[in-house]
């Protein structure tokens, strides 16, 4: 009964707030529309300079093949290595390919030929991916040459099958991550601001002198932000479906179940910070610090298995780690509750601990 009145109060306050109601629509739309386009690890449009010392038909064919690839933008064809290096130094090109003199002649004679690739690895991903793509194109070009020229058996071919994301679409990986970012920001920051705002306005005093219990007070806020979170999560889901055509492969109820556990955790964590903060600034900065940790260490952007061992162990106490894993597994692989029991158990335990601390550190009397 008291809980009902507390909830009505939260909804009414939220509704008349000049900013927050707009935020819960604008925020998911902005993040879902823009972020997956920007936060992409797909390497495309790598600038390439070719140094051609062999003015032959074969060299011409190779250049045509490379140009046809969507990964490269052919900046220029130079005649000296010196010129190519200058282009790298000036940053106008990322990758150099040197075609040696007499390539066609040597190929026809059956002699081995060495091509030389130099890459600007300031951005290591771009450097290694770019040279990798280029290497692939050249070796398949070489294969075609060998096949057409002789009857010798082709060299060993490796075929790779990409599971769960056959087109290696980076968005399939990023969109669930963005949905989690939206939840962390909205369901984490808004509660962190909530109690401290009541402290600053002095209304908390009035609540503390009423029979409203700590449990009722914190529960009303948790439930409120959970309802808000479900609304926001649904918006991001619909956006993911309509814009990127990304629909979860697995059971959507499992996703919502995990999302609610996660919302309760992050809202409880926000309230916990709010309990300990005496001003809005303090709450915001503290929350920001933890959100950074959550984002960097949860496997949202970089794989946990690549982290140093101590950081990997640390991620076990971070609930976003479990939620990120559940989201990706259910969305991409269609995993079920039985496969994810460990993540669900850990998420639930840490959520319960956090909300219990949020309730017990809220002091009606000091």
């Amino acid at each position: 009964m008291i809980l009902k009145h507390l909830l009505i109060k939260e909804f009414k306050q939220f509704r008349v707030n000049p900013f927050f109601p707009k935020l819960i629509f604008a925020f998911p739309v902005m993040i879902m529309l823009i972020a997956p386009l920007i936060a992409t690890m797909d390497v495309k449009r790598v600038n390439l300079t070719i140094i051609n010392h062999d003015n032959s038909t074969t060299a011409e064919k190779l250049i045509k093949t490379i140009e046809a690839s969507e990964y490269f933008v052919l900046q220029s064809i130079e005649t000296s290595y010196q010129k190519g290096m200058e282009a790298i130094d000036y940053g106008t090109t990322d990758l150099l390919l040197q075609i040696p003199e007499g390539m066609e002649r040597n190929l026809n004679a059956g002699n081995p030929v060495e091509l030389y690739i130099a890459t600007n690895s300031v951005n290591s991903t771009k450097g290694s991916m770019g040279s990798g793509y280029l290497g692939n194109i050249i070796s398949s070009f070489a294969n075609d040459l060998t096949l057409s020229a002789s009857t010798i058996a082709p060299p060993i071919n490796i075929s790779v099958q990409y599971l769960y994301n056959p087109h290696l679409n980076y968005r399939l990986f990023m969109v669930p991550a963005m949905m989690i970012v939206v939840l962390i920001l909205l369901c984490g920051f808004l509660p962190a601001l909530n109690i401290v705002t009541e402290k600053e306005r002095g209304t908390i005093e009035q609540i503390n002198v009423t029979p409203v219990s700590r449990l009722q007070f914190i529960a009303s806020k948790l439930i409120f932000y959970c309802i808000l979170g479900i609304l926001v999560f649904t918006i991001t889901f619909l956006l993911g479906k309509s814009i990127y055509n990304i629909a979860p492969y697995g059971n959507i109820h499992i996703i919502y179940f995990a999302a609610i556990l996660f919302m309760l955790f992050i809202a409880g964590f926000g309230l916990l910070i709010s309990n300990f903060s005496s001003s809005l600034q303090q709450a915001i900065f503290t929350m920001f610090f933890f959100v950074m940790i959550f984002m960097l260490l949860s496997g949202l952007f970089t794989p946990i298995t690549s982290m140093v061992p101590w950081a990997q162990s640390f991620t076990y106490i971070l609930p976003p780690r479990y939620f990120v894993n559940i989201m990706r597994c259910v969305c991409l692989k269609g995993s079920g509750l039985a496969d994810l029991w460990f993540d669900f158990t850990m998420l639930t335990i840490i959520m319960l601990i956090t909300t219990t601390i949020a309730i017990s550190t809220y002091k009606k009397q000091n």
Partner: protein
Amino acid sequence: MNVIEVRNLVKKFGDFTAVNNISFDVRKGEIFGFLGANGAGKTTAMRMLCGLSTPTAGEGRVAGYDIWTEAELIKRNIGYMSQRFSLYNDLSVIDNIKFFAGIYGVDKTTMQRRSNELLTRLNLEKERNLMVESLPQGWKQKLAFSIAIFHNPQIVFLDEPTGGVDPETRRQFWEMIYEAANQGITIFVTTHYMDEAEYCNRVSMMVDGRIEALDSPAMLKSRYNASSMSDVFDIIARGETNL
């Protein structure tokens, strides 16, 4: 019958003693004035009685409940209006009434009847759906007081309720206090306006955390041979500084 009994109550913040060993009783139905200069310890003492602050030492019972162990039971039986304006500015007048009535467990029909009476008495019918934020200060204070006694508490604590309010509104405010007292609600009011002390049944004078005097205004004036409570306060406060 006493609704508040305090014995040797102490509150320290580190080395600073805000409330220094005070003892007093408040009788049922009286208007008890808790007077003192700014920083004398009035608010700290009141917060301990309301269950907002834990005492450092001493005993106290409010509405029959112990302030150490039964603070939450005290809270069911009191109303409180804090120094800082304590309604929700971003809720409408009627929503504030509904909310506070709701959390004190006032049932819906009673709530509707009494909120209409309240709005009529305060002349706020037209403003019922306005945000409290947009009301003038004096109206807010009167509304906050009405909401503090809406659930018919045994005692209402008022912490400098007339701060920043014009003299006419202050007079109306005291009329409301008398009305509530006539309904049997005990009034515990802190103030530093000495003229308001004249309206109280009994007053205590607090100086530097101690109660220096406690009696009816008439008795205090005759004892200190003063013509007004303001003079009484001057004599008590000066006596203190001369020591």
